[in-house]
């Protein structure tokens, strides 16, 4: 009687969903089948670049253990793909010829790298076969290719100035490769960052040893390596950037073809409502990179402004946790309905009362790198001196946008806070780790910033680390026994000349002993004054 759940895809988001569904599987409430096309169970794709530069191990990347899942009763099928979904029969048709049935089907097919249309690259978007010396850095094999280039001190060309490209470039450069980043526009990260932040970021990247080729349009690849592999990236100005390995980092595109093939609505991703259900199909769900939350209700204000899939793993994990709870409640409902002989309609009450997952805020991008700290989030396009910022009054009762900005390009530091009513709508922080951490958490909580914005800059100052020296003689010197400097000075004036004597007379220094040097100072000062006199 238990529900059959089938998960298509076995990446980080699917792994989270499966982990959260395990209690229901163990209790017999649900049966779970997971289908992964790679030979490995889920691993942490976010860290593939780290693996590629030798900073972590493949073993440490594992997020799931197929054997453990099988022991828990999960039907794990690796190295097999879904050929199509038969919605009429509620079954998936696999490349190995089997056709598992589903009561609930979850697409967690993720995304695939965008392969740019360049001469010398095979542009088949669904099944790209990349030439030798070219990688899109998506899976464990791609990491191997990068690993070989980095450990050989080779020249790496990164095409794309997005966050993943920058992370790869920084890590590879730090580990000894010669790295060039080729990107559109005047600075990396495109529209995610503003001009000032982008300029400081680019300067910092150069300081980290990464060559930056901005405002570049690539047109094709040259394959003159001894093995016939990649040797140079050609640009439209006729120049070429030589390299031994080309890393394509041109963004990702949701994998929606299976969903499209079975007639589900898609836009950028598979369209799902606020319960992560495919439109007009209560048996099918989608989460993670492949899902686009946009409900069929045209009047829904949240969905009108919704962006497509974020490409970040955090929102996918939150969806996975929510969906696991929802599917568990649905399975409980079905089990109860079956026990009572009632129809399915009346059984979803508990599941339907589960509060919907709140819409995600625009994604926060935190650069994963050792030598360079950067965080950006939200919309950072407005500048402090923009006409509308300066002149527009409150619009529709909303406070107007305000910008606070601080730039120190010489030292590689830059902060910009875009706020409305004191709450962040956008942030940029480069070279300011504490400020970045604080701003990101303020952004995610939607909390109001302190009116004195400079407070957020000073978090990275040394004055925040050491308590300012207090020279008030009446201050408490010994906190443990509560003895003031005045009292100690009096004891010294009365004849105490060692810490032990002061302790005996006043109890100062009799607790943790942390003030012994302060007591010594007071004694020394007294006798210095006496000598001077």
């Amino acid at each position, binding site marked *: 009687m238990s529900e059959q759940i089938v998960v298509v895809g076995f990446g980080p988001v699917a792994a989270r969903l499966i982990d959260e569904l395990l209690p229901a599987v163990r209790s017999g409430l649900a049966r779970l089948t997971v289908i992964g096309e790679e030979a490995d169970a889920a691993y*942490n794709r976010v860290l593939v670049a780290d693996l590629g530069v030798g900073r972590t191990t493949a073993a440490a990347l594992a997020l799931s253990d197929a054997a453990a899942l099988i022991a828990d009763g999960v039907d794990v099928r690796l190295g097999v793909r879904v050929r199509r979904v038969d919605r009429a029969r509620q079954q998936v048709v696999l490349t190995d010829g089997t056709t598992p049935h589903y009561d609930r089907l979850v697409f967690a097919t993720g995304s695939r790298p965008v392969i740019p249309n360049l001469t010398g690259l095979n542009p088949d978007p669904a099944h790209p076969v990349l030439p030798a010396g070219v990688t899109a850095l998506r899976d464990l094999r791609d990491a191997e290719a990068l690993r070989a280039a980095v450990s050989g001190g080779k020249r790496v060309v990164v095409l794309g100035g997005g966050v993943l490209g920058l992370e790869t470039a920084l890590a590879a450069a730090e580990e000894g490769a010669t790295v060039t980043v080729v990107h559109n526009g005047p600075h990396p990260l495109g529209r995610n960052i503003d001009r000032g932040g982008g300029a400081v970021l680019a300067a910092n990247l150069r300081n980290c040893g990464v060559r930056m080729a901005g405002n570049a349009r690539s047109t094709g690849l040259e394959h003159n390596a001894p093995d016939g592999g990649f040797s140079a990236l050609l640009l439209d100005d006729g120049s070429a950037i030589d390299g031994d390995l080309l890393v394509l980092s041109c963004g990702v595109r949701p994998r929606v073809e299976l969903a499209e093939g079975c007639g589900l609505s898609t836009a950028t991703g598979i369209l799902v409502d606020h319960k992560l259900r495919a439109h007009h199909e209560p048996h099918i769900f989608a989460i993670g990179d492949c899902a686009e939350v946009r409900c069929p209700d045209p009047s829904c204000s949240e969905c009108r402004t919704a962006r497509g899939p974020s490409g970040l793993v955090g929102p996918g994990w939150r969806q996975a946790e929510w969906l696991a709870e929802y599917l568990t409640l649905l399975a409980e409902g079905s089990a109860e309905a079956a026990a009572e002989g009632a129809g399915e309609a009346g059984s979803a009450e508990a599941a339907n009362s589960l509060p919907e997952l709140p819409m995600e805020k625009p994604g926060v991008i935190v650069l994963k790198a050792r030598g360079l700290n950067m965080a950006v989030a939200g919309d950072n396009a407005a500048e402090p001196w923009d006409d509308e910022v300066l002149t527009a009054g409150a619009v529709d009762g909303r406070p107007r946008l305000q910008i606070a900005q601080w730039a120190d390009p010489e030292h590689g530091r830059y902060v910009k806070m875009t706020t409305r009513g004191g709450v962040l709508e956008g942030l940029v922080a480069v070279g300011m*780790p504490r400020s970045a*951490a604080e701003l990101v958490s303020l952004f995610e909580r939607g909390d109001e910033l302190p009116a004195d914005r400079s407070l957020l800059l000073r978090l990275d100052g040394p004055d925040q680390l050491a308590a300012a020296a207090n020279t008030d003689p009446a201050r408490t010197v010994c906190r443990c026994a*509560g003895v003031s400097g005045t009292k100690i000075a009096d004891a010294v004036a009365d004849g105490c000349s060692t810490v032990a004597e002061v302790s005996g007379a006043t109890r100062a220094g*009799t607790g943790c002993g942390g003030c012994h040097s302060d007591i010594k100072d007071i004694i020394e000062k007294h006798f210095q004054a006496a000598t001077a006199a």
Partner: protein
Amino acid sequence: MTTSADTHCPYCALQCAMTLKSPAALTPAVQPGSDPVPAPSAPSVTAPAGPVLEVSGRDFPTNRGGLCRKGWTSASLLSHPGRVTEPMLKGSDGVHRPVSWDDALKLVTAAVKDTRARYGADAVGVFGGGGLTNEKAYMLGKFARLALGTSRIDYNGRFCMSSAAAAGMRAFGVDRGLPFPLADLDGASTILMLGSNVAETMPPFVQHLQGARDAGGLIVVDPRRSATAAFTSDGGGLHLQPLPGTDLALLLGLSHVVIHEGLADTEFIQARTSGFEALARSVNAFWPERVQSLTGVPADLIRETARRLAHGATKGGSYILTGRGVEQHVDGTDTATAAINLSLLLGLPGSARSGYGTLTGQGNGQGGREHGQKADQLPGYRKITDPAARAHVAGVWGVPESLIPGPGLPAVQLLKSLGQPDGVRCLFVHASNIAVASPDANAVIAGLRSLDFLVVCDFFVSETAAEADLILPVLQWAEEEGTLTNLEGRVLRRRRALQPPAGARSELWIMARLAEALDAPSTYSEDPETVFEELRLASAGGLADYSGIDYAMLDRGEAAYWPYPVGSTGTPRLFLDGFAHADGKAVMTPVAPRRRRTPVPNPDQDAKSMTLITGRLLEHYQSGSQTRRVSELLESQPEAKMQIHPAAAASMGITDGAFVSVANERGEVLCRAELSTAIRPETVFLPFHFPELESANRLTEAATDPISGMPEFKFNKVWVRAAANGLQHSVLQASEAS
């Protein structure tokens, strides 16, 4: 009468060694009085000049002669005029008046019999404390189960140590706060302290951090720049300031770095632990930049902390210590587990110069959690559900095993059941001030008032005693003999320095008399040493085995660390040869942060939603029932002050020293604000030592950790606003009501 006694401080688990001397020809100044005892809200009546005993610090490995202000001034309470020296019965007018011991004991006996007859044995409850000696804690468990026949016994240690204890049991198979002598810390080059402010709570402890500070390796995790965190400045180490409630994510981030950067001690993991693969998978999702976004701690600080710990583990030694700041959460057991997992990845436990420990708080918080005051436990840290444990203890007690009730309710559930149908109707309270120290204190006070009969054993009219039908006066530390077990698991002797007031009695005497009146099976000695001899037998073979320890040995000054089976020499360092699980291995349990419930929306437009954390001040101990009666301490810290960041205060028009209202759906606190840049801007801090309008625990939630039963003390949503008008209003109401 003794004129000098070597004993230990009455307060915290550091149990600083002290010597008490009576000035010649001085006799106790306490006179039994017939006047009503002063109301607890006015403890400003303090001791007359010149306490009856002189206190001096005594050299000992833990405190090295040092004491803090609490210890120095402790003797002033012995002659305090507010001391209860006769049993006090509450009249129908609500005023407590003296009654004779005979009448008092008859009343209690009748109340117990009546409650049992009407509602069953489990309608009688016992609430103990971590300040009781081992002998009293042991006897309280026995008394509850045999003389009262109830399963409903638990204690205030549930609010302190239960999460770390549960985590220690799960990982190591045994829980001893520090599984190594405290002085071992001296040689360490790296010490990571999570949620512990020893500079305020146990100042002489700080001496043991000096080595790490000199090496630049003291790393303090605290949302506040506490006095302890301040020790990391000037090259002493690092201060990590995470958002409240995110300690678990921070620890997972540290473990992530250890695994991914190859810093783990693979040999140790292979040989001495199980569960590594699942743990590695579970921390995979917590890379430093993601943890930075969750906690507000910069990724580079997370990496540096992990590297320093790993470096220390190979050179000098690394220790990881947790305190209430990370444990007093609904995920406290998992957070302590994450700290233990990190220590296991680095191979710290089981090494002679590295380790993991939790800093026990209350005076006998260690011994108090070993000998049967816990709802689920029998003496020797035995499980009450384990048939072999039941049989052993029944044998020592000379009763059939079936007479020992099963597990009861942990503290928060026990308190929630007060006065409820099928709940506790008659309650005994020992060494606890639950009206101030329990979460959701308003609800607890309402529960106390709904009881049929409340007996409180105390030497002052604490806020809980004020609610009692009957107050039974008991002894203070300098008036009794016994043993305590300090934060290192070392058993210490408490010695009598002077005669108690004529009307005060030991709890052992009270339990013996009541057991007699209730025709209880087994024996109930009132002599501490006799009780200890029985405890030795009852603990023999248990995890906390005291069977090889006796008073004579302790009196010779021998360092007795449990487990100390007969014929052994004790165990200063646990885990050197193996962990206490059957296969000798430590268990790594994967843990993950849980989603928090959505807080109740703020109904007050003038107030700002903030996060409340609670904690301690150097000058006060626990509910403050004792330290608020010491004039020197009270003058120094006379009232609760809400610590708030100046930037947050400015946005609400709150100035330093101004009155503020801190409220949520459970209650309201009215107190002064103290502006400080040592706290994060979205967080406020309140000490919990104060009662009534200043009682922080009116705001804390009685939500508990699913494993340990630990309540959420350190992460509560509150609504803060300036309160000049509100305060006047409330004060008027309060004075009209009184």
